[in-house]
């Protein structure tokens, strides 16, 4: 049974339903209890809008025009949102039982840490004694007892984040929505939050939707990831699967750490890629390329799958223009016909800048190079 199910969600900038006006289209996904679900994409792509839809701040488009909407909200959504199989698209935010951590946290500056954390309990008609009891328990869990009476301006960024998360989970919500919780935070704090939330989700049998633009963070902790770009879902899968088999060039670049993309036409008879910029590339591995009906393809190659060799007429050659080192590997940027190609080599082999070299594709393993059809179809399957 899915805890949260979103079906064909579309968000528009206003109540005019045109293609230019849409922010995201055809968003469909489901989250099971205990799952940490990540929504990834570049900045300003509509990730926060999806979070706002789940929380209920973006009203659904109605047949009668609703002029008077709270929150200066002009955006409208269509589609269905189900929680435990019940449609909640039209219900009020307060009836959805969602814990929400907005971007930049927004703690109440006039309340102490304790008042901030216990604030959601006031909506539940509890007695002050019970509120104190639950509040103390959460404070101990988050290790915040020392700053119980401090104001938000007096505490550090990491503590602020803890307070905001504690405030979101104190009422045991079924769904937790975290909008870039790790933004503006030192890397040293970043590693603490998501493991903690994962533990909490397992114990409560609830789910969390985390919005982030950090692929590294996502690949470490998330159970499932949805990558969005250009209004649509590019890929929805587990981090490992997305890393190994990206479905679009964007995902390959954004998540799978593939630097080199070569555009060309594929000749199925001789198993060659004819590229304008790089010449002929021989495909040694025959997997899955024939499934693309179009002859125009983009070939993505990991920098580790390329090898620098001495100048050789039979291979494509170019000039080294840049180099840098990272964790035991030398990276070289090589210019071939005004196109930059990134190559990784082991540290013991060094080349000079401005040296003319040739390149060889060594990868015949799986997941070394990838083929994408040149034109991304507008509808991407799950």
């Amino acid at each position, binding site marked *: 049974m899915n805890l949260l199910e979103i079906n064909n969600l579309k968000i528009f900038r206003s109540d005019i339903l045109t293609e230019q006006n849409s922010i995201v289209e055809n968003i469909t996904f489901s989250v099971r209890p205990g799952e940490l679900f990540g929504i990834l994409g570049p900045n300003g792509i509509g990730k926060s809008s999806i979070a706002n839809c789940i929380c209920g701040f973006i009203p659904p488009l109605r047949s009668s025009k609703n002029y008077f909407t709270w929150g*200066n909200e002009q955006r409208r959504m269509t589609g269905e949102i189900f929680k435990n199989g019940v449609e909640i698209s039209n219900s009020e935010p307060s009836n959805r039982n969602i814990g929400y951590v907005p971007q930049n946290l927004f703690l109440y500056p006039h309340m102490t840490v304790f008042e901030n954390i216990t*604030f959601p309990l*006031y909506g539940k008609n509890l007695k002050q004694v019970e509120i104190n009891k639950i509040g103390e328990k959460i404070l101990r869990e988050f290790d915040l007892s020392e700053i119980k009476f401090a104001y938000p301006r007096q505490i550090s960024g990491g503590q602020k984040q803890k307070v905001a998360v504690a405030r979101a989970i104190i009422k045991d919500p079924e769904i937790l929505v975290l909008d870039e919780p790790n933004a503006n935070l030192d890397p040293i704090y970043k590693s603490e939050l998501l493991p903690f939330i994962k533990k909490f989700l397992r114990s409560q049998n609830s789910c969390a939707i985390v919005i982030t633009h950090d692929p590294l963070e996502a690949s470490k902790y998330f159970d499932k990831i949805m990558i969005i770009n250009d209004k649509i879902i590019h890929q929805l899968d587990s981090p490992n699967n997305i890393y190994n088999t990206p479905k679009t060039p964007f995902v390959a670049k954004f998540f799978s750490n593939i630097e080199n993309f070569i555009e060309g036409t594929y000749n199925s008879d001789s198993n060659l890629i004819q590229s304008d910029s790089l010449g002929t590339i021989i495909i040694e591995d025959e997997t899955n390329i024939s499934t693309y009906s179009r002859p125009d393809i983009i070939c993505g190659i990991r920098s580790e799958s390329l090898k620098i060799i001495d100048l050789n007429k039979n291979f494509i050659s170019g000039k080294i223009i840049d180099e840098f080192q990272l964790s035991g590997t030398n990276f070289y940027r090589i210019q071939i016909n005004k196109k930059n190609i990134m190559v990784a080599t082991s540290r013991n082999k060094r080349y000079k800048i401005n040296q003319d070299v040739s390149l060889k594709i060594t990868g015949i393993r799986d997941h070394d190079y990838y083929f994408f059809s040149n034109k991304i179809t507008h509808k991407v399957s799950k």
Partner: protein
Amino acid sequence: MKLWVRKILAISFAIIIITPLIWVVISGLRDVSSLLNNPFSLDSDLSFENLKVVINLPDFSINLINSILLAILSSIIVIILITPISYTFSRYNFPYKKYITTISLFSTYLLAPPVLIFPYFKILSQFGIINSILGILITHIAFSLPFALSIGKIIYDSVPIEMEKIAIINNVNTARHLFFKIIFPNIKLQYIGLFILIFAISWKEFFYAFIISTDSKSGTLPVLLGTMYSGEYNHWGVILACSSLMILPALFLLILSSRIKFQYFLSSTSKE
């Protein structure tokens, strides 16, 4: 700019502001003949004779009470009125919102007071509240409302909407709870600033009060001061003493407001 240049500029600016105030207060305490002979000399005896004359004027006490009542009442009423209106303007979307704000601002401040006073006078006289403090109060409220409304919208814009979203999602969604628990504690200082502004506008307002109060009993301090100019001979000592009495509350509010961090006043932190 170097620090000493800035210091000199600040001090000279302060002198330019403060000197006339000190001059008014000192001249109000001086004998009228020495004041007229040499307005800027400092070597004359100071006495409270002029102040006594002002305070013993038959209408002074009632006009003072009128002024204080008007300033406080109009500030409070305007603030109560703008609270729901400016919240609506800040948080809700409705058709022609932009034009309504602009029209309400320009309809009051683009037209000169003599143009507006005719309809005001006609309406107030039909209700029979000419020559009463209530009539002046209504004009003062009407005068400062659009201005306060636009300031009020800025004040509410400075409260991030996410704060309210968190409250709403946690079931704290009655207007009373939302306003007094979340919004008001964050805009207290801005409201004090707004109160001082409207108080100052109403305290020094002369034209409407002068036209509407035909009887000296219903006038305000600026009206009293204005009537002192009538005739060939002006008693400058008394006029200046009365002026310095009028400056005192304004000065007090100025000192009070300097303790408020006014950077909050026009700041906006919301992400749009």
